[in-house]
């Protein structure tokens, strides 16, 4: 069997990376949105994916999560050595992939706390961990609520129902912190947040990452660079028209802040 150089690199990356995306092409409604993405993320790394509106940033997050609205036509994605694209949405989540959504839906009548406890214990069970007792669960939730500056009343309400944009974002981070993922993808978490809320959200996400830095990776998808003041990425990628057109260090983000996507 003849292996091309890029395939050889890809297979080597699959083995060591937390996330290895190789030549990913994605369509929705007959239109190609992602046109050959290559990206490797190792444990302990923070990556920022930047780009103008419509460049395909959010699509990438949805494809990783398994959104059925998108079709992968070419390419592969390996997560912790496993074929991510072959896994069901919930299998990806249980394996440690968390995507904080830009527009999380409202689910009327579903108590936020009860939902979260069900999710946490389902995920823990799938990982061979014991379920959290009610007391332990509550004490962890309270710690995170404090960190995020969320009133406890928020978790007694229906899931996201009537939440402001900022409250929904904080609620996403609360879930992320409780679910203890390995790969955390924040999809435009900064949109709709005021400066103070942004700082709380960013610090909490960073804290979760730092807690288990040797195992975790953080991907920040954003249009603006202001969140990168709090979460400093080692790698910044610029997405334009479905392709990564530039990769570099924090300097790339600084240039974008100054000059725009141009």
């Amino acid at each position, binding site marked *: 069997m003849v292996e091309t150089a890029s395939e050889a690199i890809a297979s080597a990356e699959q083995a060591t990376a937390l996330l290895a995306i190789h030549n990913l092409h994605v369509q929705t409604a007959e239109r190609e949105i992602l046109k050959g993405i290559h990206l490797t993320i190792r444990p302990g790394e923070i990556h920022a994916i930047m780009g103008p509106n419509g460049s395909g940033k959010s699509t990438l997050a949805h494809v990783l*999560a*398994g*959104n*059925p*609205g998108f079709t992968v036509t070419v390419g592969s994605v390996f997560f912790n050595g496993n074929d991510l694209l072959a896994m*069901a*949405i*919930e299998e*990806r*989540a*249980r394996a440690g992939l*968390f*995507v904080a*959504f830009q527009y*999380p*839906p409202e*689910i*009327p*009548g*579903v108590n936020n706390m009860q*939902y979260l406890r*069900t*999710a946490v214990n*389902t*995920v823990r069970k*799938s990982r061979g961990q014991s379920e959290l007792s009610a007391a332990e669960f509550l004490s962890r939730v309270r710690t995170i609520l404090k960190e995020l500056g969320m009133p406890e009343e928020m978790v007694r309400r*229906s*899931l996201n129902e009537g939440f402001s944009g900022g409250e929904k974002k904080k609620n996403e981070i609360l*879930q992320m912190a409780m*679910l203890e993922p390995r790969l955390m993808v924040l999809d435009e978490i900064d949109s709709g947040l005021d400066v103070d809320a942004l700082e709380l959200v960013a610090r909490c996400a960073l804290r979760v990452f730092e807690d288990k830095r040797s195992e975790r990776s953080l991907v920040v998808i954003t249009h603006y660079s202001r969140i990168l003041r709090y979460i400093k990425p080692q790698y910044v990628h610029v997405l334009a028209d479905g392709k990564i057109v530039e990769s570099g260090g924090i300097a790339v983000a600084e240039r974008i802040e100054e000059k725009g996507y141009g």
Partner: protein
Amino acid sequence: MVDATVAELGGGYKYGFVTDIESETLPAGLTEETIRKISALKDEPEFLLEWRLRAFRAWQQMKEPHWAEVTYPPIDYQSISYFSRPKKKLKSLEEADPKLLETFNRLGIPLTEQKFLANVEGAEVNSRPLTPVAVDAVFDSVSVVTTYRETLAKLGIIFCSFSEAVREHPELVREYLGSVVPIRDNFFSALNSAVFSDGSFVYVPPGVRCPMELSTYFRINSANTGQFERTLIIADKGSYVSYLEGCTAPQRDENQLHAAVVELIALEGAHIKYSTVQNWYPGDAEGRGGIYNFVTKRGLCKGAYSRISWTQVETGSAITWKYPSCILKGDHSRGEFYSVAFTGNYQQADTGTKMIHLGRNTRSTIISKGISAGHGRNTYRGLVRIAQSAENARNYTRCDSLILGDRAAAHTYPVIDAKNPRAQVEHEATTSKVSDTQLYFLRQRGLSEEDAVHLVVNGFCKEVFRELPMEFAVEAQKLLEISLEDANG
């Protein structure tokens, strides 16, 4: 997405077994002679036989209604048996046929009295004390046992089978029977009035708050038999009672008819809370078999400041046709209707309520949640009528439909008829599908697809479930989950 989940799961109707018990059953057919026989078998007073015969003559002149959004082959009323009871007569529970006891045991219905656990440490579920439930168990056409009667009798509360009430309290039966649902009200109420066999009777004296849930459990066992029970609840001045009915039937290929009548009377300041968890056999995945549940339920808020609340969770039956209603006659009286109706496979439900405002300052609330899955058809039909006399009457109606999959259907027929210019009537309605976005989101947090569907549907029903007594709210939630799993065969 939803279809896939539902199909993968088993589940099944848990209560489809048949009890092999010796019964005496009247031959099929309905004539004046049948009615005389039923009345004689039950040793009834003359007034009741006369009443039955009047009902029978009225019924003969009436036509089966076909305005509901349901379809079924013609019913042959002469091929049904109108009376069936276990052969062995009971003097006490100890003498009961073990098979009968076993049946209710399998259904999870306690026929022996549990020790009173209220106020005992540890006897709490979710910080609410666990209270016992008094049960009247009706097997085919007769009541087999009623528990906690003595405890209740000390407070002056009468809780017994209808037959016994006829014997022991004929004056109450005579005064109130047919006073809310008259014989000629509709085709099925006339039929019931002619042939009803048993049911429950409750009387709560003035100022008494009934300390436990009262419940009747209906079980149809015999094949080819209809069940026609009659329930009469009278709450005297300033009293309170919470009553629950549950029902199941064996799995059979033929359809069976259940045509009950329930009458509630709330006198001044009284509050009756009536809850139903209806789980008759719904038929199989191809739509074969199942119960035709054609029921007339109505409450009369007779006195000022009285209140009647209907809560129903309808998951069973091949066809449901019922409209638990309130006549708000007393000034300041309140009527409430909270409903979850689920139809899966080929089930059909046409259900809703009527709120008839007659008194001043009367209030009514209607919260209806319809869920259709598979080929299910779900219809809300409601009437809010405000008479000229009903000064300052108010109604609030919310009517939500949830559709799962793309073969199910939901209909809504709300009618508002306000004759008083100062009436305030609000109506809100929504129709939605369980959105793929919601399921995708919940699965991204690690929930399986079926758990995600359950969560969304339970959330949808929350406003109604919280009206149920707690033990039954849990049961209703489980029932709904099983029904969801079976919805697409």
